[in-house]
């Protein structure tokens, strides 16, 4: 066997046999500039692409133990950030392109094979490539493209190829990543002893600390200690994170069959994934079944029919306590570090009124969620003549979700094995069924013609999309047995049934014109008109133009003479896109809503309560985001070093914001298009690939950053402490707080501080040594909230915002002989985190322990250099730990997202087994991170630190997997 290879060409192998002269033609590898990129309603060669479009090919998803394709996107594309929402099996992250476009949220429009779809439901193995339209090139999608567009194309069979069978499988072990740690019993007891003002009843004395340190098994039955009367006193530390959170696993199997003949191709893809969650008790799993059948048929020479039918089924079974009611993550965190798991009789032990999370998982009832997603996508393309092509596409997608939620009562047992209370009463069983029917009909024509040096292209089309959502649910309560709780076994008394539904429709017309001269100067313009059912008929239509210009500098004679650039391209683009995420489906109609609750009149009469639900403003309309982009693409050194740089501006000039009105209005006013948001940023992408002998390797790095600012808004700009949604002149979700000035160390400092704030009651009477000091920025002697730090307007300054900054990704790849190695590191350079709600201070409430983070950091007379004020349980603690420069954390992190080492067995070996290819690999996900986030908080958490947000949510996991790829 002779192997012929050369950089830039496909490696070719040929058996020599007995020949003495061999003629070989090497085919050129696809250069970066020749890559075909999917843009709206068509494709274009990267060489001619005028917009900022990044592509991701199938390799990003192959052999990665991620169930949701969106998770695999992290760090692959500069400007695309993926924010994870907790690690529950089956959860979906939030995607964001180039920061936000509006305070009302909005996410990129995801189109799978031309119609809107859900990345979380798609089998990652089916993805051929993805295009991310980041700038004005998305304008062709008009009304919902303000946050960018992600075009996903699925794999298809190839013509004239025999049946190819591929099988992929992996097994992953999941271990919990970062866990929020509560203070251990010793730490909690020590911190409690620091409280010197009597506000916390003493639980453990100084002498008893020794017992805790030793891990004593002593139990004082039914004592009175601290605030607990009649409960046993324990002295041993229990690590509840350890007791409840264990390991899970993820398995995946995929079978693909594809092939084709002269006039047809086919592809069948079958997949199954099953994931087990982390809790050690109860159940938590997620199963997926994927089936896809694709075929292209040439009905006549000019008429081609594409058929794409896919069905994704998912089934999640989980203990209800994982997400219903007071969820177990909150319970695990708050369960006292002295409470043992079981009482001496072996039952789950409940300390006082706090549910035992293990009991909640095991005995709290089970819920199941079954969903199915059927997509029927067919397309007919008609090549009218060599220049004109007509495409018609009809997509119908039906999604249904059937959930059953069973919540059981818990019988709580105390240390003496007495059932002292029944928790989570009444028990209930609920069935919920929701369905969505989505339809998309598109028709467009594409005309291309060349006249000498001039190339012209015209595309015109129309589309109509609609979605119809319906949900109904039924619930019965007070079951007298908990063995089996289907609806029909419950009592009809106090049963509840309700329903909900909404629908929307969008009609669109779109067009695009391209002109290129001498293949060097290209210009393109597009226009889309969208009419949406969400608006009053007079304000229904929006128009979204776009344009871009490209100069292929590398084709210029003067550049060619340099013999330096393999390719060099300058481009600029402009586009207007719409965002309707702040608008409900019927906002222009004044509605009456019936409250879910009732008011009880005599005889158990349930009085329904009706009230006006919204104030209407007919002139509310789309937010329009104007995106401008300039960029440069280059490749040099024989296409080995390549990269691109982009700088962009996004302006949302009619952002829907809530303007505060005087309370006399009596109702929430509708948001009006009276805000302006400006976003700007840059992206940098550089790659190097080379081959040295048998070693081929590549390095690709990307770095991006974006900043947003509310430039203008009508109405009063009342800036409050804490999170401000749209403060003028600052980014969205900006935090404001006081300036921390240290801790009062002695009586003299206390007197001086009191002199600083003569008009502030609390400082004069309650604040003492060990408490926080703040600056009086406006000099009025009062610690006042209103204002933003500008002279005379209050005592607060801008503390930061939660947007991640300086996102970077580093992709490393190397292949040598049969081995391949891939590593992917991702991180951010800066982000502001402020702990809020229950996480904001030690001893937020006296009935559960603080975060371990605070241990040893609080002021005591022996530890005067501590960064945080003394612990207390009086209201003073809200003052001490208020939003300020002291409670703001600036975090950065770098995470080894993926590490893969694989080995492809030599062809000689595999062919003996009748296999075309056999590869085995080890792949790890989220293996390791370097970060400076306080106390166990994961730096990737979505940033909502208030009660119920990511403060207590399903932990993220690390994945260690082994897998194999087989091609027959």
């Amino acid at each position, binding site marked *: 066997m002779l192997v012929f290879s050369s950089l830039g060409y496909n490696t070719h192998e040929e058996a020599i046999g007995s020949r003495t002269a061999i003629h070989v033609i090497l085919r050129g590898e696809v250069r970066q500039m020749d890559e075909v990129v999917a843009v709206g309603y068509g494709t274009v060669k990267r060489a001619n692409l005028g917009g900022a479009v990044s592509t991701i090919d199938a390799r990003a998803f192959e052999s990665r133990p991620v169930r949701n394709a969106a998770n695999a996107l992290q760090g692959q594309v500069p400007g695309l950030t993926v924010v994870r929402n907790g690690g529950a099996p089956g959860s979906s992250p939030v995607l964001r392109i180039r920061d936000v476009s509006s305070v009302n949220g909005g996410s990129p429009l995801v189109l799978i094979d031309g119609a809107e779809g859900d990345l979380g439901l798609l089998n990652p193995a089916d993805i051929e490539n993805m295009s991310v339209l980041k700038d004005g090139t998305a304008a062709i999608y008009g009304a919902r493209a303000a946050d960018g567009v992600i075009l996903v194309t699925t794999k298809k069979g190839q013509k004239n190829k025999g049946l190819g069978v591929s099988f992929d499988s992996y097994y992953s072990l999941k271990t919990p990543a970062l866990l929020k740690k509560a203070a251990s019993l010793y730490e909690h007891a020590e911190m409690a002893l620091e409280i010197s003002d009597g506000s916390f009843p003493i639980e453990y004395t100084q002498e008893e600390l020794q017992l805790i340190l030793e891990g004593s098994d002593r139990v004082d039955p039914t004592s009175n200690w601290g605030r607990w009367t009649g409960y046993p006193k324990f002295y041993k530390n229990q690590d509840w994170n350890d007791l409840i959170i264990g390991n899970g696993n993820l398995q995946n199997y995929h079978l693909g069959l594809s092939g084709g003949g002269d006039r047809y191709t086919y592809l069948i893809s079958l997949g199954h994934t099953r994931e087990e969650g982390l809790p050690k008790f109860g159940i938590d799993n997620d199963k997926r079944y994927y089936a896809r059948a694709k075929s292209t048929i040439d009905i006549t020479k000019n008429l081609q029919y594409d058929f794409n039918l896919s069905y994704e089924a998912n089934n999640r079974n989980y203990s209800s306590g994982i997400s219903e009611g007071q969820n177990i993550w909150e319970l695990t965190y708050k369960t006292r570090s002295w409470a043992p798991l079981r009482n001496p009789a072996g039952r789950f032990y409940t300390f006082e009124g706090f549910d035992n999370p293990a009991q909640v998982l095991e005995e709290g009832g089970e819920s199941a969620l079954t969903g199915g997603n059927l997509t029927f996508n067919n397309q007919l393309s008609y090549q009218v003549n060599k220049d004109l092509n007509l495409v018609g596409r009809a997509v119908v997608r039906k999604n249904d979700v059937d959930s059953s939620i069973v919540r059981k009562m818990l019988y709580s047992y105390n240390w003496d094995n007495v059932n002292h209370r029944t928790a989570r009463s009444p028990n209930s069983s609920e069935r919920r069924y929701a369905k969505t029917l989505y339809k998309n009909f598109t028709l467009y024509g594409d005309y291309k013609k060349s006249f000498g040096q001039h190339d012209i292209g015209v595309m015109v089309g129309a589309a109509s999309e609609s979605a119809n959502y319906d949900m109904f649910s039924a619930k019965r309560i007070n079951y007298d047995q908990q063995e089996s709780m289907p609806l029909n076994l419950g009592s009809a008394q106090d049963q509840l049934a309700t329903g909900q539904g909404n629908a929307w*429709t969008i*009609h669109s017309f779109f067009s695009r014109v391209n002109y290129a001269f001498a293949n060097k100067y290209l210009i393109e313009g597009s226009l889309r008109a969208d009419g949406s059912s969400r608006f009053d008929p007079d304000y229904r239509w929006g128009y979204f133009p776009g344009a871009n210009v490209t100069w292929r500098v590398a084709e210029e004679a003067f550049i060619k003479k340099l013999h330096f650039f393999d390719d060099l391209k300058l481009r600029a683009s402009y586009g207007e896109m719409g965002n309707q995420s702040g608008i409900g489906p019927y906002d222009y109609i004044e509605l009456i809503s019936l409250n879910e609750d009732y008011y009880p009149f005599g005889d158990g009469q349930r009085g329904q309560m009706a*009230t006006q639900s919204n104030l209407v403003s007919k002139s509310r309309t789309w937010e329009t985001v104007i995106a401008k982009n300039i960029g440069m693409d280059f490749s040099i050194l024989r296409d080995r070093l390549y990269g691109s740089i982009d700088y962009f501006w996004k302006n949302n000039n009619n952002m829907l914001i809530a303007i505060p*009105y005087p309370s*006399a209005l009596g109702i929430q006013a509708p948001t009006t298009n009276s805000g302006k948001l400006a976003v700007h940023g840059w992206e940098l992408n550089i790659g190097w690939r080379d081959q040295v002998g048998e070693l081929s390797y590549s390095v690709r790095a990307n770095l991006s950053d974006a900043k947003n600012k509310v430039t203008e808004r009508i109405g009063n700009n009342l800036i409050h402490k804490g999170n401000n949604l749209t403060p003028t002149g600052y980014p969205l979700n900006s935090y404001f707080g006081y300036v921390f000035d240290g801790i009062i160390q002695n009586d003299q400092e206390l007197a001086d501080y009191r002199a600083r704030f003569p008009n502030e009651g609390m400082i004069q009477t309650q604040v003492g040594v060990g408490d926080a000091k703040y600056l009086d920025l406006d000099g009025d002697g009062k610690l006042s909230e209103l204002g933003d730090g500008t002279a005379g307007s209050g005592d607060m300054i801008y503390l930061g915002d939660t947007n991640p900054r300086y996102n970077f990704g580093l992709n490393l790849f190397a292949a040598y002989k049969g081995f391949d190695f891939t590593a992917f590191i991702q991180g951010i350079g800066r982000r502001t985190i402020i702990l809020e709600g229950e996480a904001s201070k030690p001893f937020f409430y006296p009935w559960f322990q603080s975060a371990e983070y605070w241990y040893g950091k609080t002021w005591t007379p022996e530890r005067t250099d501590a960064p945080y004020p003394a612990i207390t349980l009086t209201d003073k603690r809200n003052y001490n730990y208020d939003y300020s420069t002291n409670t703001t954390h600036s975090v950065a992190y770098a995470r080894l997202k993926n590490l893969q080492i694989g080995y492809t067995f030599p062809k000689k070996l595999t062919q003996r087994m009748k296999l075309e290819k056999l590869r085995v690999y080890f792949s790890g996900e989220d293996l390791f991170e370097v970060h400076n986030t306080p106390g166990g908080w994961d730096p990737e958490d979505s940033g909502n630190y208030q009660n119920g947000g990511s403060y207590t949510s399903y932990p993220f996991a690390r994945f260690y997997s082994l897998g194999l790829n087989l091609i027959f």
Partner: protein
Amino acid sequence: MNRYLSRILIAIALLLVMVNCQDINLRPKDNLSDSQFWKGPSDFMKAANQLYSTAETFLLVDRENEPRDMDSDIGYNQAANTISNGTWSAPTSDAEWSNRFADFRNCNKIIEKSESYAGDPAEIERYVAEARFFRAYNHWRLMKKFNDIPIITSVLSTESEELYGKRQPQTAVEDFILSELEEAASKLPKQSELQSSELGRITQGAALALKARVALFAGTWAKYHQHRSDYAQLLDQAIDAAKRVIDSHEYQLYEGAGNESYRQLFIDKGDDSPEGIFDSRYAKNIRMHSNAHSVYWGWRGTPTKKLADMYLCKGTGLPIEATGSGFQGYAKIADEFKDRDPRMSQTFLMPGTKYLNANGPDSCVAKFTVRPETRTGYKLWKFMGETVAGVDDATYDYHIIRYAEVLLILAEATFEKDGAISDAVLDQTINVLRSRKGVEMPALNNTFVNAHGLDMLTEIRRERTIELAFEGFRRDDLRRWKKAETELVKPLLGIKYKGTQYEQLNVLNDGNPGHVDANGFLIVDPANVRFFTAPKHYYFPVPLDEIALNSNLLPNNPGW
């Protein structure tokens, strides 16, 4: 080219057909639009039902669930109350301000829609009257806190001028409320006319009782703060309204639980009693609350010495400080409860008592940290539910207006207007309260007052304070009598600690230094941290956010 042309034309035709086959004018699928509502009496009833859900209840919902009377001198919760001791600062926002305007809008919407009602106005007349009652009631709630407030009588939009209107003087607001209540009363049914399924709806008695309450407030504020000169006329309105309620014989004091009637009135047995005139209703699985457990935990405040000392001695009917009263002193815990007005031991939970709480039978000990927790040493029993139920599953109603208050209004208004009160009126009012089953205190009359050198006004006010303790009246009473400046600066004291059984039993919680005053009483909030600046602290400030949005609300209340 022709065959292309025809094919292109077909394509365009398909395009147009396809685009139009999906309707773009959509109607809401699961909600009524405003134009589909307001068609019949049941629609108006549903809209009126909404108004009941924001009425006052056990806790001050708009003040972060602060328990009632913590802002006065008769109650103390787990920490010093900044409103009680005058150290509070002007807030940026205040839910008690903003939520009332939402109520005004809902009331005005019903009234506005009734004017364009297509059917027979008589069908909806009652619900419109309820809306007017609630409009007046909510203006009352706003007025008693902020004094000068805007009067809103129409549904406002973002373009309305009234959004940026001024605050109307208290005089105008009072007159508005009183006239509205009088009008509404004429259209509302009597309590006895209600069907059993309508129990809880507003009645004529409720409108008149509220009118009496507002008129008394206005009249006494006028007499002592002189914001208007016609206080006698206001007190007359109070007397008149109260008399009409009494003479209607629609209500009477609750005595259904024998000797426990006073205490049981406030919990489960007191639901649907003849004493409730306007209740905030709760029912199993429909609307429930958590006060049964919370009072047991000690989170609804505990009484202070001020309240404890107010109860008269039962045998003599004299205050404890009078000679020969029969007061037994403080040496033993049970001593100060001996031979006192029975309402004392039905409001306070005396250590040693066997009682029922929401977990079952229990026994009270004196220790501060044993539930019910206390900081003053006195434990609260009033409002503690006895039915065993889960933490959030208590179902007893809250009496917003009850008959006892009407009697007290008549007595106080009569005295304030005439400077004297006849024994006949006393027998109609105070002495009816004193003869409730289980209370049975000696009667109050002019002879008794003169013989013992007491002051009738003090005695009337005393009766009011102990009858309505922990029902949220105390601070407003001190404000309108212009007594707050002397009473609220006094230190808040608890049990007598030094040299008593409390000290022997070592009842204090860890970390409590046990500061006592010169007489050995536990100091809970010392005088040097209690402030009252007159006239500033008689008023609440309009929240700063509101002023920033509407500067016409200025000037703020005096001193703010």
